[in-house]
């Protein structure tokens, strides 16, 4: 048993312990903090499995932006939780436990019943890596070999933002999401919000660009850009845009729209839906990724900003 194995066993034990603690702890805020730490540790596990692309996404979404969403939800629930004295009834808790346990059991059985060696398309992906002009196999799968899934995933993001917006009251519809943040204009937060975004925007675009040959891509880069945008909003330097604004909606549909247009182009002029012409594969994929970077950054930022709460005039 070498030192890497010891580290992996310790990591898995800590993740399991943290997961149990997150479920068991009664306080919502503590559970949220536990879940964020859990996301960061799971990212470490992905690194150990050599899945750096997944690790980046897990750290950015599961640990970062998802954590902020949960913290916001915990803050909003604090008042109502203080008023309710009794928790959910025994039947509700028992049914939730049975449901969760059966899902965990089904997942475990599925994993254990996989044939050995598990069926894999990885050799085919490696063999065809040169077809798109990119060498990162994950980007190849996401953008070319299974491009359909990625396109639908972006449509799901759009549906999510529609779902968040639909929580708005009638008066606030079309207005600006979230509260107007106030911070000391000469304070540390405003200082960070002026200093960090130039570097953060470069890092976000770099992660997109390097995704062709190394771990990275539109989702991870978009998450970095979204966090820069949110930092500037939280420091009160800019306000959230009103959701009725035309340019905002154009950016939101731009990524999936361009993806769909290229896909239909493949249907009309090429072999199949989303079939890229070999000579233009890399430029086409790159332009889709640039459009998606903007869409993802805007969508993630707006998901965190929440439902429209104020009229657009203020």
């Amino acid at each position, binding site marked *: 048993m070498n030192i890497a194995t010891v580290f992996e066993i310790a990591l898995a034990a800590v993740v399991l312990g943290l997961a149990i603690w997150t479920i068991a702890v009664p306080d919502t805020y503590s559970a949220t903090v536990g879940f964020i730490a859990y996301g960061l540790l799971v990212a470490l596990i992905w690194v150990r499995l050599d899945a750096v692309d997944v690790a980046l996404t897990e750290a950015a979404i599961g640990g970062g932006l998802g954590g902020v969403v949960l913290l916001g939800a915990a803050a909003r629930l604090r008042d109502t939780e203080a008023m309710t004295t009794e928790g959910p009834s025994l039947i509700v808790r028992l049914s939730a436990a049975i449901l969760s346990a059966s899902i965990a059991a089904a997942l475990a059985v599925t994993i254990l019943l996989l044939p050995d060696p598990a069926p894999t398309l990885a050799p085919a992906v490696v063999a065809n890596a040169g077809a798109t002009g990119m060498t990162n196999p994950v980007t190849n799968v996401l953008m070319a070999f299974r491009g359909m899934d990625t396109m639908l995933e972006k449509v799901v993001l759009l549906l999510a933002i529609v779902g968040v917006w639909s929580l708005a009251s009638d008066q606030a519809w079309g207005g600006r999401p979230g509260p107007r943040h106030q911070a000391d204009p000469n304070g*540390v937060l405003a200082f960070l919000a002026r200093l960090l975004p130039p570097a953060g925007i470069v890092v976000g675009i770099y992660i997109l660009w390097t995704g062709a040959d190394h771990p990275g891509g539109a989702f991870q880069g978009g998450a970095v850009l979204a966090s820069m945008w949110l930092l500037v909003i939280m420091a009160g330097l800019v306000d959230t845009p009103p959701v009725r604004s035309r340019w905002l909606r154009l950016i939101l549909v731009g990524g999936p729209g361009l993806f769909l247009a290229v896909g239909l182009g493949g249907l009309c002029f090429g072999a199949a839906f989303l079939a890229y012409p070999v000579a233009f594969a890399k430029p086409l994929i790159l332009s889709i990724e640039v459009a998606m970077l903007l869409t993802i950054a805007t969508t993630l930022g707006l998901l965190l900003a929440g439902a429209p709460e104020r009229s657009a005039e203020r």
Partner: protein
Amino acid sequence: MSVARDIITVAGVSAGVFFFFAGTVGLLRFPDTLTRLHALSKADNLGLGFVVLGLLPQTGGLRDGLKLISIWMFVLLAGATVSQLIARTARQSGSGK
């Protein structure tokens, strides 16, 4: 040469681990928010700094080294800002005493 590089790495990472350990002990043992923040920011700044310093000889080239250093710089910036914000909030709400 590679032995010298490895010695620097072991020394740097060990020093980093020491500061992380001390910072964690401080986080668990110190009595209030401000002193705990003090312990935590030492761990982040010095601990990560020494780990980065120790890893520098192992990098393939200047590019990777600069990336490591910029990661440390970003953590310094974020850590200092967040510590300030938490400390200010703790002081205003009176829990920092």
